[in-house]
């Protein structure tokens, strides 16, 4: 079982915490004496099996109290499992807290050196790391001032830089750290990326779907101490988001008419299990094309797993999504500057007059949100079973090389100034994909922004740059 290229192996691992009713019970148990009354046990991890290969980058998602942090703690080796076996091959480094070993009276430089002692670097790595940190934090003269006079931002920069100055074989992170203002958070993100891409095995706990997509290839979804789903990061994230959305809706729908009940209802284990099963069933069917109504979107846009969020309004359903070229052929890749057409077909489940807004959200492959296309209000009269089609056209695709995901939705109420009140008939989250192929293979351009060169000699006195598209682009 324990192959040399396995970094972490969990076999039937359980971890329980005693729910002690008194301090005495706790002390007795810790000292190895049996308590007369059976102490109730809480299963933080229940029969967990996982194998993480060397160099793999794993995300752990799950709600608060699902057992994510417990799992990380067991990997550190400083805490004991209740039963099962854990094998860890390699030096584990934990990025779980910052500010270890810092002293308010020490200067920045003294603190860097004091805290770095706990990072397990060799002598030459140590000196390099000190230089690197000084370079990163940009503290200037403050480097030789005591820590207690630092602003919070300066402190957090220093904490972050020191905590991330490690050479891990296996890196575990409980929530990605960041530090400071916009400039430094970009710099921190870059540093985190360098660290996680250093070839180490990574296990990341995060509540941010985007971070998991950005840093991880695979993911595990933990719920009440059990792994309920594992696989490609994008699939897990979508299933998990769908589930949390369902919980949220359930809580809202129950709290509106009977506000008193709201909390207790959503706490109900039965309901949670029911919703969980719905999501898991749905995603298992998708991954298994032989199943019933396996693929409702046969030969339409290239799918990456349909993730349908629970509808808030009834009557309309997205029937089909197709990605087309200029002449109406279904495609799944497009060249830069060519035409791309996304066709949305909706089906009326009941006869009626409908208010509809069509929405497409575009994402990069690592989950960053690029742009939103929301149509204006369309009022359509449809008979039951009738299909209505609308198109979103990119006359010229100006995106860089790469894969893009998109979500499609139809809304009944949509006010971009107040999205909290938006209500949709149907929403398919990050379920489709197309590929953009540019002229040059190695071109890593994010966006081909339209602009014009000009020189004063040509009669123009100031450079003219015209933006044609209103597009959100996050430049790396």
């Amino acid at each position, binding site marked *: 079982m324990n192959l040399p290229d396995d970094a972490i192996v969990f076999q039937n691992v359980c971890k329980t*915490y005693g729910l002690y009713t008194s301090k005495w019970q*706790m*002390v007795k148990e*810790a000292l190895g004496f049996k308590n007369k009354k059976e102490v109730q046990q809480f299963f933080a991890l229940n029969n967990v099996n996982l194998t993480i290969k060397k160099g793999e980058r794993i995300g752990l998602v799950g709600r608060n109290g699902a057992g994510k942090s417990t799992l990380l*703690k067991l990997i*550190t*080796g*400083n*805490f*004991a499992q209740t039963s099962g076996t854990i094998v860890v091959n390699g*030096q*584990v*480094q*934990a990025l*779980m*807290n910052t*500010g*270890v*070993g810092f*002293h*308010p*009276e*020490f200067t920045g430089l*003294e603190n860097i*050196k*004091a805290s770095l*002692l*706990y*990072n*397990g670097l060799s002598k030459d790595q140590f000196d390099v790391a000190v230089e690197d940190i000084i370079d990163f934090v940009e503290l200037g003269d403050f480097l030789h001032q*005591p820590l207690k006079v630092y602003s919070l931002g300066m402190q957090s920069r220093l904490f972050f830089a020191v905590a991330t100055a490690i050479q891990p074989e296996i890196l575990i992170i409980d929530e990605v750290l960041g530090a400071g203002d916009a400039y430094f958070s970009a710099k921190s993100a870059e540093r985190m990326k360098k660290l996680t891409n250093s070839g180490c095995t990574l296990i990341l706990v995060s509540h941010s779907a985007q971070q998991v997509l950005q840093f991880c290839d695979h993911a595990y979804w933990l719920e009440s101490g059990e792994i309920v789903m594992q696989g490609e990061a994008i699939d897990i994230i979508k299933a998990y988001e769908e589930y949390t959305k369902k919980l949220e809706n359930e809580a809202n729908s129950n709290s509106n008419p009977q506000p008193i009940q709201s909390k207790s209802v959503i706490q109900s284990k039965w309901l949670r299990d029911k919703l969980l099963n719905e999501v898991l069933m749905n995603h298992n069917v998708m991954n298994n094309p032989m199943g019933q109504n396996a693929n409702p979107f046969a030969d339409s846009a290239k799918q990456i797993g349909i993730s349908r969020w629970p509808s808030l309004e009834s009557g309309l359903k997205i029937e089909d999504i197709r990605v087309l070229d200029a002449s109406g052929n279904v495609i799944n890749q497009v060249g830069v500057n060519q035409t791309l057409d996304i066709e949305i077909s909706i089906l009326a489940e009941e006869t009626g007059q409908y208010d509809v807004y069509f929405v497409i959200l575009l994402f990069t492959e690592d989950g960053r949100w690029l742009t939103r296309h929301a149509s204006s209000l369309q009022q359509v009269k449809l008979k039951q079973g009738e299909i209505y089609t609308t198109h979103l056209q990119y006359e010229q695709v100006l995106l860089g090389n790469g894969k893009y995901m998109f979500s499609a939705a139809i809304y009944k109420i949509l006010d971009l100034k107040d999205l909290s009140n938006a209500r949709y008939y149907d929403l398919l989250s990050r379920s489709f994909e197309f590929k953009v192929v540019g002229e040059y293979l190695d071109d890593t351009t994010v966006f081909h922004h339209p602009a014009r060169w000009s020189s004063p000699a040509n009669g123009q006195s100031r450079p003219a740059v015209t933006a044609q598209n209103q597009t959100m682009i996050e430049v790396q």
Partner: protein
Amino acid sequence: MIPFVMAPFKAIHAHFALLEGTVRTEIVQKYAGSIIGLAWAFLYPLILFFIYSTLYLVIFRIRPSDMTTNMYVVYIMSGLLPFLGFAEGLSAGTTSLSSKKSLLLNTVYPSEFIPLQVVLSSHMTLFVGIFLLLVANLFLLHSLNWTVVIIPYLILLQLMFTGGVVWVLSILNLLIKDIQQSLSFITMLLMIMSPIAYTPSMVPKALKLMLYINPFSYYVWSYQDLFVRGVVSYNLLIATCISMLSFTLGYHFYNKSKKVFYEFA
């Protein structure tokens, strides 16, 4: 048996540079922010020395019949300095784990060094104090016993003894906070029960028994033997045995129970 005894030494040997670094930082941290900084490490035993000499030479004017006044001052200081080091190591070491909780998640630094590094740095005053005592010895008594060359060994024994005790107390203190609460009384009691300012012949029988029960008495007597009397006695042998026992058992207790107790941190 031999691997069992050697285990703590091996662990220290393997991470010696790391331990040295953290002890050094810990010492500097203790005085960080004060104007004269490390000079306090010298000033503290020096002031102590003057207070005690004044107390016994000018105010109390008592001394054992077989000692001169100067000798008596050296006698007291040679017992008091080690005791203060021990008491400080005990109290700082016991709370070391609970005050450095975040280090328990650290996977690179061995957590058993946390109590040890605090014990070592707490003995800074003793290292400096012993040096001052040697100088005072020369001035007050105009002679120095050859036996003082054994002092470093005795200090090592004391560090091992304190380290072992603190390993047990620090980890128990994660769960039973009552330990740190009661510690100040215990050290006060231990001080009274230690033969620092008196000799066994000066006290009544009941107290004499307490002297022999108190393990730290043997260290105090050993210091006094080496400094004042210039003899190597069976006290040093007993201290050696206590130190080995405390150090080995403390280390193994810590490692056996750490996974259980970290959960309560």
